[in-house]
């Protein structure tokens, strides 16, 4: 039966000529409505079904998508967008300005279960969206906001489908109607999603007949499926990249930096961690080079500020490298604070040893490895660190608890920027983001607040760069969190796939040109 089945499958496969790009999703998409989505799977799928006003190219630069042209008035608050004509929704209706206005009004409505509302509320006031004509949209901002265009990559949804209905439970969240190069053909929940090419796509017809996403929740299985050619493209963990170097295989590997960093969040309400000298001592105790070598096999860069290597605002080392690995400095800083080494080699003050608890989420062996290395570095410098594991839901619950001060000392986290602009730091480092926002550690610094406020008002990149250099200088001095590294991301691509792009935007940035070897 087996060999017969296998032959049969091969026979059908050959007669059908494989023209579908197969990929894996770790989970079913929650929804295929770009306004509602918050999970990785939904993002991946909707990006081929919908278009935004703008999109990011392979270098993560903002380029025009549905927009033909745009202008900003002198005050920097009124944006006028001219839309491309002749674009059709998958159901054949024409795409018009009212769809754009509807999309952003839906995001702003408190009834919509979206996490993007705060993007379009500036200084407590919403951005005003109006259709001037069928192909002209005006957005009026309460105040200038330099990264505004970065936020307009979100997919536009059709007004004629959703208007007047509950967008959260709408059936078209499962049967999306977009303007993108692919349309959803079939969705077998927990099994696969099949997209087929949109023959009326405004930029041309894709070379692929379609895309199949297979839902494979287990990372290892997904990796095996890539090895066997059942899927053509898959993110790979770094240890697999290293271990497969000796193996011959049909898989090419791309690597690139992303908009992310790993760090140890300090609870700044903690009596010891609120002391900047202790924070500096902790930063100087950690050998980031060893961390990168042991955890990332060398594929990463040391981090001292919340930035990304890809950002135009990324500061140079003379600004950031303030409290680099120097165990002697750690000891002298602690001694100056009145700590003395006891017989066990641990610093103590008034008989109390210097010790912290590090919270980590369960699941990844890499996270555990980082935690253990930190424990090692700290103990070398006479600081005790205990590790506490929680599942992701309880982990986040502690970090976002309403009881202030929150019940943790430190937590190991990765941070992913939503947009490639330094203003994305605003929510997590401005004092207004605490306790109800995303300033999780409770960082409050008037100078940083002022610079963050200034940075988003300036439209000129050179003057913004100066502002953010000043800001990074303060953060590098202040060590509000223990920044660890910027990791590289790896994607494995099957040899037979042609037309992939190379860069931080990922391999599928020119999806129309992706095809297979004949």
């Amino acid at each position: 039966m087996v060999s017969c089945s296998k032959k049969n499958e091969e026979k059908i496969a050959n007669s059908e000529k494989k023209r579908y790009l197969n990929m894996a999703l770790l989970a079913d998409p929650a929804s295929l409505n770009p306004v509602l989505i918050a999970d990785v799977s939904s993002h991946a799928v909707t990006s081929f079904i919908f278009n935004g006003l703008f999109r990011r190219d392979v270098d993560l630069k903002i380029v025009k998508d549905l927009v033909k042209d745009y202008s900003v008035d002198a005050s920097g608050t009124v944006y006028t967008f001219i839309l491309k004509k002749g674009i059709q929704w998958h159901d054949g209706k024409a795409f018009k300005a009212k769809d754009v206005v509807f999309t952003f009004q839906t995001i702003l409505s408190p009834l919509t279960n979206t996490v993007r509302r705060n993007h379009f509320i500036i200084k407590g006031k919403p951005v005003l969206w109006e259709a001037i004509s069928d192909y002209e949209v005006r957005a009026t901002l309460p105040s200038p906001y330099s990264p505004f265009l970065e936020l307009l990559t979100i997919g536009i949804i059709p007004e004629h489908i959703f208007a007047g209905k509950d967008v959260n439970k709408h059936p078209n969240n499962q049967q999306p109607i977009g303007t993108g190069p692919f349309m959803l053909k079939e969705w077998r929940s927990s099994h696969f999603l099949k997209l087929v090419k949109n023959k009326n796509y405004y930029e041309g017809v894709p070379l692929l007949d379609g895309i199949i996403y297979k839902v494979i929740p287990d990372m290892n299985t997904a990796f095996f499926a890539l090895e066997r050619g059942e899927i053509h493209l898959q993110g790979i963990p770094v240890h697999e990249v290293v271990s497969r170097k000796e193996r011959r295989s049909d898989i090419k590997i791309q690597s690139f930096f992303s908009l992310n960093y790993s760090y140890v969040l300090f609870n700044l309400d903690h009596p010891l961690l609120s002391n900047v000298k202790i924070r500096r001592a902790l930063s100087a105790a950690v050998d980031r080079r060893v961390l990168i070598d042991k955890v990332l096999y060398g594929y990463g860069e040391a981090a001292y500020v919340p930035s990304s290597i890809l950002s135009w605002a990324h500061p140079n080392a003379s600004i950031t490298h303030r409290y680099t690995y120097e165990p002697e400095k750690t000891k002298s800083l602690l001694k100056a604070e009145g700590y003395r080494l006891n017989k066990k080699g641990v610093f103590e003050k008034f008989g109390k040893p210097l010790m912290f608890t590090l919270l980590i989420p369960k699941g990844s062996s890499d996270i555990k490895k980082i935690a253990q290395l930190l424990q090692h570095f700290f103990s070398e410098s006479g600081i005790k660190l205990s590790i506490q594991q929680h599942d992701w839901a309880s982990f986040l619950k502690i970090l976002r608890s309403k009881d202030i001060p929150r019940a943790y000392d430190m937590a190991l986290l990765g941070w992913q920027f939503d947009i490639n602009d330094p203003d994305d730091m605003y929510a997590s480092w401005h004092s207004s983001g605490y306790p109800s926002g995303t300033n999780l550690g409770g960082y409050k610094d008037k100078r940083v607040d002022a610079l963050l406020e200034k940075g988003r008002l300036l439209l000129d990149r050179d003057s913004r760069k100066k502002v953010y250099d000043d800001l990074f200088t303060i953060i590098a001095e202040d060590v509000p969190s223990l920044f660890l590294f910027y990791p590289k991301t790896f994607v494995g691509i099957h040899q037979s796939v042609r037309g992939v792009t190379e860069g931080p935007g990922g391999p599928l940035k020119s999806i129309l040109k992706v095809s297979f070897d004949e």
Partner: protein
Amino acid sequence: MNNYGWRYIAFRLAVLIPMLIGITFISFLLIQASPGDPTSFYHNPSFGIDDLELIRSNLGLDRSTAYQYFLWLKHVMSGNLGYSYITGRPVFSMIVEKIPATLVLTLSSFFIIMVLSVPLGVLSAYHQQSIWDYGITIMSFLGMAIPIFWLAMICIMFFSLKLNIFPTSGYYDPNIYPYASFFSQMGMILYHSFLPVLSIVVGGVASMIRYNRASFIQVLGSDYITAARARGISSKRILFVHASKNAFISMVTIIGLWLPSLFGGSFVVEYIFGWPGLGKMGVEAVFTRDYPVLMGVLLFSSFLIVISNFLTDLAYCFVDPRIGTGVCS
């Protein structure tokens, strides 16, 4: 079946309802007590806490646990299992579309486990302390000791990667399924089910052999078997006619208890092989704290447990009419 029998069945069926309510209520409490809620599925800590509060109140999660439970119960009574918090889809249809895949996996594993474990158990019991018995016993302890997730991984690495004869995952290949005939579609599903079934069967056969062996040994040692032997009845007849009927009584008990856990045991396998069944959906719902889906799956599986207990009780009287329900007399 007599009048008393029907009354007994009606009574047992009526008891099912409060039982299910009790199970679901306790489950609901436990689910609510676990940390996090569906908004923690918005994994990204960069999402605003205020927005999460708003979503929480839109979903009704700010109400008391008791209120939420009774609302759920009220909807269930009117045949509505609710909507997934994550996808917004009706839970009932989500469950129904997963049943075929789960049945393929569970029933074929069950069938294979029975076919293999009964003869091997009998063999082991009949030739007690022979080389056969030792061999089978060692193999079954090994089978029970192997963790299922590990076995599944080894299966993929060996059969899919090394030998390249079975697919790593999935229910069928969506690239070619629509173009295949009905029979090749069925063949494709069986072909894809081979490794998941194998992973379930190994542990299942191993433990069922132990049960079957034990119950046969017990029966074979009893007086009436000795008496039958004394009367010169052939070994075959003793084994298959005299002993087997009594040995099956305890096996029915085991099967009744174990059949629902076969559904549960396949959770891990479904997850690893990307098998689109109820188990995988249940596991995902646990991770995302998708209460309506989780409650739906729990309701379905507790229904199975309760029903299979009920059927076990009925089965007893066919195996042994003395067991006092009087239903079959």
